[in-house]
């Protein structure tokens, strides 16, 4: 297992190098300039700006500097917000995005699995149909529509929640629900179908024949196997929740990282683009690794090996 993780870490490094390289060149190929301004700048100032950020060097020097700085984790000062360090921006805003993301993932997984299990247990009865309708709604309503609806009715009209901002737990409920609605519905569908498959499998019939009680069969045997696809889905879900929070953060004016990730690109804020991209890449690559490790915990049939499989 340790050699497996070591090997994966090497792959992660290679992937990081590819991502940094691709970002660097795409960024330079894209038209536009971070210092283009509505009021024309004297050439002396333009030059001095370029020199400050090393943009006057040939591309290979800039590329080398980027690689070294990325390795050191030092991304420099933002080109748009000249008083802000990219690292500070990430350090301040990521915990907020993570709180929101974890809360949304908790809602999505807990309620998704619950809904899916209930639907499977009452297969083709009214709870099943009700759950299916909810799931279809959840999947088909985009999160930003959900966010606006929740904000308008629950916050503005009924005054149950604050409208926007980030000043306490109450402020995070609506955005987390809005962010969770689609993945929750998806998890519910996944759980339902794999639960149905498991309840028809031989080992469950065997357990029934042995007279084991229904809750024990469902929770101890069937659900555990049925959750495998859900765990697989966790990695892309992390990606989606962490990076996809941009729109939700905007609607609820939450000071999260998603905003920097998107606006830095329109601002051509090179240092922030690089910083957020590298940071997200690390998070996502690690998330995938963790999910792979989780597999072995949940399903003992899967073993992690460093070398070739010899099954």
């Amino acid at each position: 297992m340790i050699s497996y993780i070591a090997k994966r870490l090497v792959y992660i490094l290679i992937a990081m190098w590819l991502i940094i390289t691709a970002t660097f060149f795409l960024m330079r190929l894209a038209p536009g300039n971070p210092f283009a301004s509505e009021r024309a700048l004297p050439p002396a100032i333009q030059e001095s700006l370029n020199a400050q950020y090393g943009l006057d060097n040939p591309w290979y020097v800039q590329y080398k500097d980027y690689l070294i700085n990325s390795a050191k984790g030092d991304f420099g000062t933002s080109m748009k917000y000249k008083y802000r360090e990219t690292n500070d921006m990430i350090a301040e805003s990521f915990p907020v995005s993570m709180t929101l993301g974890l809360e949304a993932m908790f809602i999505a997984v807990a309620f998704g699995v619950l809904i899916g299990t209930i639907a499977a247990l009452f297969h083709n009865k009214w709870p099943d149909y009700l759950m299916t309708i909810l799931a279809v709604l959840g999947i088909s309503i985009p999160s930003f529509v959900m966010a606006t609806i929740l904000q308008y009715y629950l916050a503005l009209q009924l005054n149950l929640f604050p409208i926007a901002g980030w000043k306490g737990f109450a402020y995070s409920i609506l955005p987390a629900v809005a962010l969770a609605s689609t993945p929750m519905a998806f998890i519910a569908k996944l759980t339902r179908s794999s639960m149905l498959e498991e309840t028809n499998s031989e080992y469950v019939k065997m357990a029934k024949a042995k007279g084991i009680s229904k809750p024990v069969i469902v929770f101890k045997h069937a659900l555990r196997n049925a959750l495998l696809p859900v765990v697989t889905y966790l990695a892309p879900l992390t990606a989606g929740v962490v990076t996809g929070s941009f729109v939700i953060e905007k609607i609820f004016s939450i000071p999260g990282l998603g905003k920097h990730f998107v606006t830095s690109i329109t601002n051509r804020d090179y240092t922030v683009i690089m910083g957020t991209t590298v940071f997200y890449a690390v998070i996502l690559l690690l998330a995938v690794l963790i999910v792979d490790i989780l597999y072995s915990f949940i399903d003992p049939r899967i073993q992690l090996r460093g070398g070739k499989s010899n099954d």
Partner: protein
Amino acid sequence: MKKLGTLLLLLVSGIVLAACNFGGGGDSDTTEDGEAMKELNVSITSDPPAFHPALATDTTSGAILASAFEGLTRLDAKGEPTEGMAEKVEVSEDGKTYTYTLRDAKWSNGDPVIAQDFEFAWKWALDPENAADYAYQLYYIVGAEEYNNGEGSADDVGVKVIDEKTLEVTLVNPTPFFDELTAFYTYFPVNSKLAEENPDWYKDPSGEDFVGNGPFNLDEFASADHITLSKNDNYWDKDNVALDKVNISMIESEATALKEYQAGNLDYLGAPFNSIDLNALDGFKEDGTLNVSDQAGTYMIVFNTKDEILGNKNIREALTIAIDRQGLIDNVTKGEQKPGSGLVPLTMTGFEEPADYFKSNDIEAAKAALEKGLTELGLDSPADLKIKLSYNTSEAHAAIMQFVQQGWSKNLGIDVSLDNSEWQVYLEQLDAGEYQAGRYGWVGDFNDPINFLEIYKRDGGNNQTGWTNEEYTNLLNQVATETDEAARTQYMKDAEEILMSEFPISPIYFYTNLSVKQDSVKNMEADPMGNVQLKYVDVEE
């Protein structure tokens, strides 16, 4: 199962831990002497791009800076210059030398405001090393442009400290609007003692070294979340500052800001403190709460006169006439803007009456001009005319450009295509002259027509049309040296007439300030430059 439980437990504890990361805290609502606090709640869309007066270029930063700092003069609520740091101003007879006597004012840390603070701040802004975008605002001072371009030296800049309380400024030309300029943020002083010790003082706006001399102190800055201002007890005119505290939250989405306003959590909506969602304008108009005032800004289409087709004056004239400006304002922009009649907005002295350089939406005249242009270009039918209309990506601009496109193709029968690109890309396109017709907007930094006319004085810089005219340039040179106000205005009017007879630009509308405020808020309105000064605002119960 056990492992699954552990997993869930981990997730839950993770959330609980992470939940400790909520900002905010309790607020008290009374001052020390037990009176009710006067608090104002407003919002801005994002972090101000600059906290250093010399590095600021936008109205959001400007609004914060004008609260935390004060120049030699300050604008009143109507946009007219009034007293600021200078107690007395003496202007020499030729209008070129200003001698300021500073009042006994203090920085928020108790240091006295001295003449050196101004000299330091202005030279810092002009130092090319510091790359201040707005350094050109100081070019009216002798030697400033040369120093900023790297040709002169700091010692040759016409700012002289006579003693701690006396500052002498020498200008290149008599500048009738210099009192307005000294109220502008590029001219704000900086505490030179602190800035020399800590050149990065502005990088931590809520830090100890961020001191101002304005009506408010910047207490808190939480990126993308909020800014808190509180009354500055060291401010010389503190008796005329009503507000004790200003809470500025950052709300990027206009729709969200609108809901916060409707819920009573925000006291004011309108630039620079966020703006009113376009969809809500009709509602505010109906219940009579919408405040509209003229702004010194012109929304226009610029033509690339170096282009094969748009190099033709008659084509440009036809395109300019064939825009239904009133229709656009009534149906698309809806902000009660005034139809654009020239380059200089109607807020400027001498330009209050809309000029009649062309008759908007006179299709017959437009067709006649088009016909002439086509003949000159050797084209047979309008359908052979292909024009690309460029703009920077935004819903509002897209709607306006589509309206213009439809007018041109329906009324003139020409083939118009739309082309949008991101702001940073669009600016480069204009600069490189890689466009035919493009959207452009200009909002004045001070209320003088020269602010607008100057753009087209020479090629390059902010003039992306490629259009120049010797007579026009000469007139503007005369404006620069003329001391008689009436004659100066006349030169500027003549210059605008020359510009508008050749149509390098097509004015669309003059901007308006739109705002709504809660009933309790008093004296809060935007001046013609779109500034809202918190110094004068009051909140009544």
